[in-house]
């Protein structure tokens, strides 16, 4: 029921957005392939590359398995205790790693688990001289679990909370023991979600850059992403970077294909408004067991964050804030992050609008529906080309001479594309339901064009658009992966400044910078959620 002009404009917008994404990605990959083919001397699979590939997959599989293994009992404990003081704060805490710049999390983890961290100092005080090492595989796994088990827990918890409240009352009335209840009710509900969750974490861990850069090291603990960066920035060996990037594309393609087989995206979905009664969680045994899971998990999550705040406050913040270096870094970061966020939102909005325009033309040939489905498939294809790979391709295209001029644009562009799939997931459902609600009314009142945008679309979509924008901007603001490829003395973003301070062992400065970066990201996130109406905020 869009006017003909609106339909054409929406489809044209979506098509050009998709074409832009495809061209940008294809140019990067073509540059990789061209270099790879012209320099056949570098074998695709030498022992070094094989070792890196093996480690990448190993740590990804272990990270995914461990995160899920932690999340299953924890989600059950949280579901079984629907009412206790602080529960809502624990759930909010579990949302933090999603938006936390990875480099800050890493810094916090090092403060807690590092050589001179809280844990090791405690162990020494207890007379144990077996220090925990955060570097190498252990550290990478620890960090990946830190970042991913909260996500897995929230998704599994949602799958339990979607079960009808009567189940728990009936189970209790029938006298089902906790073990039976787990086997017959809780586990079947969680099991159906696990492949999608495990796959998502596998993908995130397989393309993780910052954590491996900071906590890995040496050929024994390097992933493809970090190996690409090292080949490009330290060994000045583009052919090797190309070989690694091609392997990376092959690996992510394989993972994506396998994920398609498991099908179904994990969703938080709608849960019951009122928390259910859980008589099975009210026995002392259950309470003790659940507390024994929830408290350590909360501490595991909270301590690194607390360490960042404490470390940051101990730094000479006044001197740092007065430092012109910081001013430039913050300005550079914002000049990259805000356009990146805008780009991600524009791409997602135009593609989502086109999808809706295609789908709403009822009675049209099937080809429209096919095209609409194709757009979402194409949109997720960008995941095939991780940022580092895309960056490597464009590194080759730009050439070292033009790097300083082009780098900010490339970083913003790649950051925007990185955020785009997530942003699309926020915007697409919101836009679809908004259009379905308003379309007929707008058509009958003849509200079109700019008027419709001002009167109907912007008020209705402000919240999801702003949430998506701030999320994408925060993601770009905290990103180290792309800027690590392009960064230079001329181009210093906040995470890059933080990374170089860590590298030169100016730990206090690094801690202070981490706090400042964290506050900036937090400010953006709060800005993105503050515009919600009171009714939306009321439901926890």
């Amino acid at each position, binding site marked *: 029921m869009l006017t003909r002009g609106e339909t054409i404009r929406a489809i044209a917008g979506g098509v050009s957005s998709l074409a832009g994404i495809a061209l940008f990605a294809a140019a990067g990959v073509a540059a990789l392939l061209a270099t790879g083919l012209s320099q056949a001397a570098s074998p695709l699979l030498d022992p070094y590359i094989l070792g890196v590939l093996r480690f990448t997959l190993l740590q990804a599989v272990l990270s995914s398995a461990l995160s899920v293994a932690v999340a299953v009992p924890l989600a059950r404990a949280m579901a079984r205790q629907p009412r206790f003081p602080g529960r809502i704060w624990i759930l909010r805490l579990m949302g933090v790693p999603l938006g936390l710049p990875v480099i800050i999390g890493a810094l916090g983890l090092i403060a807690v688990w590092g050589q001179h961290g809280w844990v090791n100092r405690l162990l020494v005080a207890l007379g144990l001289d077996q220090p925990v090492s955060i570097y190498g595989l252990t550290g990478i796994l620890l960090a990946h679990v830190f970042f991913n088990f909260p996500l897995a827990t929230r998704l599994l918890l949602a799958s339990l909370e979607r079960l*009808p*409240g*009567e*189940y728990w*009352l*009936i189970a*209790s*009335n*029938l*006298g*089902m*023991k906790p073990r*039976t209840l787990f086997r*017959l*009710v809780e586990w*079947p509900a969680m099991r159906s979600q696990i492949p999608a969750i495990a796959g998502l974490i596998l993908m995130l861990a397989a393309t993780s850059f910052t954590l491996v850069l900071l906590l890995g090291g040496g050929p024994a603990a390097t992933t493809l992403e970090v190996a690409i960066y090292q080949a490009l920035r330290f060994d000045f060996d583009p052919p090797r970077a190309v070989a690694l990037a091609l392997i990376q594309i092959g690996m992510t393609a394989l993972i994506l294909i396998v994920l398609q087989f498991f099908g179904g995206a994990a969703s938080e979905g709608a849960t019951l408004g009122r928390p259910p*009664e859980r*008589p099975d969680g009210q026995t002392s045994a259950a309470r003790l067991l659940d507390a024994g899971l929830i408290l350590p998990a909360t501490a595991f999550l909270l301590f690194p964050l607390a360490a960042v705040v404490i470390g940051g406050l101990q730094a000479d913040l006044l001197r740092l804030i007065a430092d012109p270096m910081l001013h430039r870094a913050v300005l550079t970061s914002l000049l990259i992050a805000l356009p990146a966020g805008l780009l991600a939102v524009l791409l997602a909005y135009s593609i989502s609008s086109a999808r809706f325009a295609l789908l709403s033309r009822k009675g049209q040939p099937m080809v429209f529906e096919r095209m609409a489905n194709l757009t979402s498939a194409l949109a997720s294809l960008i995941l095939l080309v991780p940022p580092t790979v895309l960056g490597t391709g464009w590194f080759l295209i730009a050439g070292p001479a033009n790097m300083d001029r082009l780098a900010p644009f490339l970083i913003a562009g790649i950051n925007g594309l990185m955020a785009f799939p997530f942003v699309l997931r926020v915007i697409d459902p919101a836009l679809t339901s908004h259009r379905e609600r308003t379309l007929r009314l707008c058509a009958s009142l003849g509200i079109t064009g700019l008027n419709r945008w001002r009167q109907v679309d912007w008020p209705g979509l402000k919240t999801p658009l702003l949430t998506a924008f701030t999320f994408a901007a925060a993601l770009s603001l905290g990103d180290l992966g792309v800027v690590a490829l392009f960064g230079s003395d001329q181009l210093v973003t906040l995470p890059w400044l933080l990374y170089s301070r860590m590298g030169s062992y100016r730990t206090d400065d690094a801690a202070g910078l981490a706090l400042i970066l964290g506050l900036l990201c937090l400010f953006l996130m709060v800005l993105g959620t503050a515009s919600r109406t009171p009714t939306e905020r009321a439901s926890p």
Partner: protein
Amino acid sequence: MDIRLQKVELSRAGKAFCFDTLIRGGMITALAGASGSGKSTLMSLIAGFDRPQNGHILFDGIDFTRAHPSERPVSLVFQENNLFAHLDLRTNIGLGIRPDLRLGTAEKAAVSHALERTGLGGFENRLPGTLSGGERQRAAFARALVRKRPCLLLDEPFAALDPALRIEMGRLLLDLQQETGVTVLLVTHLPDDVERLASEVIFLKDGEILADETTGAFLARQEPQEIRNFLGNRPPR
């Protein structure tokens, strides 16, 4: 089996509840009242999902106030979701005999017999999702049958069914009650259900018992206003 609530008090979310009544054994008592008047809370107290702050709950004179829900002599049927959707009927009903599901031949036969009695013969391997709403409620009754508890708490068990089916299910309930002599407490918002099924009525208002009498006396009431409103909902005959 008589259910006695002795000065049972509970306050929850700023609302105070106070119940003192005797639910007489071997008959059907209806529990009515506006939403929020405390019907579900009263059920929860009897079933053991809520513990009273004061007072006692006795079954045939024995104090069960602190007993676990599974130890109480009651079975439950809710409006919906009485069956675990991913388990077949044999499992769902077998849980009523052995909550750990170790079913022998005798138990399996009991399940099949209960299914037949409720008109679901041969449905052992069906999943709840393949049944109609009425059939799912029948299966819930079948589970209550195999549990053989002397009291049955029904929380709007027919509310999701269409009128014809509701009358049919009401008849099944009357038959089963007469056959087993079970004490039934039936939560309902329909005066029609009260008239057809119940011998006695408890009417709640704001967490307290407003009326507690035989169905005949209840239906003849002209006041107070709340009960007149409730009875006014009756379809014209």
